[in-house]
């Protein structure tokens, strides 16, 4: 494999997050290196999704800071995160249900749109040109994800597995440098998981995108991730290479259970 894992580009330092007194994350530090696939695992309610939400600014941690390519953010917000090249998918699929596949993915190009409202209303000059350019870009992503046959289908009508793929497509349309995936394989059978793994690996491989991934399926995590961090009750209980984590006794008792 040609990709080279680079320096740390995303670094979380001592992050703590609480909702009305209930602690979701306690003093968590971890880093992500460029081009790696970084997995976050842990039991339900361990704070995995909260972690992603902190990274892209949906939640504001009470303590700690986020360092992105050397820039310190004590307050991240989703817009800033998006500008900085972070995109994500959602655990419960957060597609725009009233739009078709293409339009959903076109929203991913939003930050790159330069024309203003009036130009768009007149469908004139840069507005029209941009629309075509971005459409071409989106079509590339559609080809990559092999969803050509559904490009005009309203997303609400798609089966779950394809919705997950469109969700990924929307995130990819942003051409992110860091991609956060929240349980991309939940509720899938092995065949579909294989497809999804292939996409994740290809994204990582072809575009060099750094990937942070939450996943329950241990087989998937062990096979495709470079490093794994393990959370339990909002604390970090393990961090390292997949094999190290699998051998960590604390991780076994909290999460994996004896049979795995």
């Amino acid at each position, binding site marked *: 494999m040609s990709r080279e894992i680079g320096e740390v580009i995303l670094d979380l330092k001592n992050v703590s997050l609480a909702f009305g007194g209930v602690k979701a994350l306690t003093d968590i530090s971890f880093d992500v290196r460029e081009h790696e696939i970084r997995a976050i695992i842990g039991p339900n*309610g361990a704070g995995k999704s909260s972690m992603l939400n902190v990274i892209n600014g949906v939640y504001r941690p009470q303590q700690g800071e986020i360092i992105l390519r050397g820039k310190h953010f004590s307050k991240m917000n989703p817009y800033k995160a998006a500008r900085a090249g972070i995109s994500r998918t959602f655990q419960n699929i957060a597609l725009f249900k009233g739009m078709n596949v293409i339009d959903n993915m076109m929203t991913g190009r939003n930050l790159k749109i330069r024309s203003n409202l009036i130009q768009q209303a007149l469908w004139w000059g840069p507005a029209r040109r941009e629309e075509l350019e971005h459409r071409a870009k989106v079509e590339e992503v559609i080809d990559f994800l092999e969803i050509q046959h559904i490009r005009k289908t309203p997303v609400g009508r798609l*089966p779950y*597995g394809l919705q997950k793929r469109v969700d990924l497509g929307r995130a990819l349309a942003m051409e992110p440098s860091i991609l956060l995936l929240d349980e991309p394989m*939940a509720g899938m*059978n092995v065949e579909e998981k294989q497809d999804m*793994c292939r996409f994740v690996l290809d994204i990582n491989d072809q575009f060099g995108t750094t990937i942070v991934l939450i996943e*329950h399926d241990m087989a998937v995590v062990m*096979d495709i991730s470079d490093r794994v961090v393990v959370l339990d009750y909002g604390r970090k209980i393990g961090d390292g290479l997949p094999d190290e984590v699998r051998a960590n006794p604390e991780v076994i008792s909290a999460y994996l*259970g004896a049979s*795995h």
Partner: protein
Amino acid sequence: MSTANILLKVNSIEVIYNHVILVLKGVSFSVPEGGIVALLGGNGAGKTTTLRAVSNLLRGERGEVTKGTIELRDERIEALSPAQLVRRGVIQVMEGRHCFAHLSIEENLLAGAYTRTDGKAAIAETLEKVYTYFPRIKTRRSSQAAYTSGGEQQMCAIGRALMANPRMVLLDEPSMGLAPQIVDEVFTIVRDLNQKEGVTFLLAEQNTNMALRYADFGYILENGRVVMEGAASELAANEDVKEFYLGLSSAGRKSFRDVKHYRRRKRWLS
């Protein structure tokens, strides 16, 4: 399966959503009394729709059974309301758990006893029984359901269904989004309930591995049709099932990293 103890019999049903979208194209299967039957298959295969057709929760989604019959102990049930079905002992635990977010766990459970007419004492007894099966949620009994974890919500949802004293539970994706350990726990409880209480289960599951380990019999759905059926052990031994649903090849489990960029066609489609 002998026909003597068939509890539920579904006969080539067809389901259409919104008058135009055909989702089930003639699905037939049967569930024996006291069995655990699994409906397996990918997303959009029609598992959830099948369960909804049985429990008659389709109408809210603008779907309807347009052909075929569904019989419970030889009684046609397509026209019954969900409430009437619960009174006949058939109850569904929906995908995604659907606990009452603002009610406490205990209130959730008690709400499950709405159709019971056998008095408070009997309900209290069932509540205790549910708590013995799910000790984990007993400790959270007074928390609002919205603030409990996914595993606890799944247990709450199953427990809530048990409060109705059902003979048959339709379980939709019980493992979805749960940590491996919790999935084990949930399935173990399902087996216990089946063996000790004699509750019949019809479950729809993506997690083929888990489902086949606990079920007696399985049906594989694809594109709204049953493409394969058999005893759980037979299915688990089938080469196609192994490859496409369990991720095993003759050389043992294949790493997800080594998945090829092309796929072999399934034999039953060719």
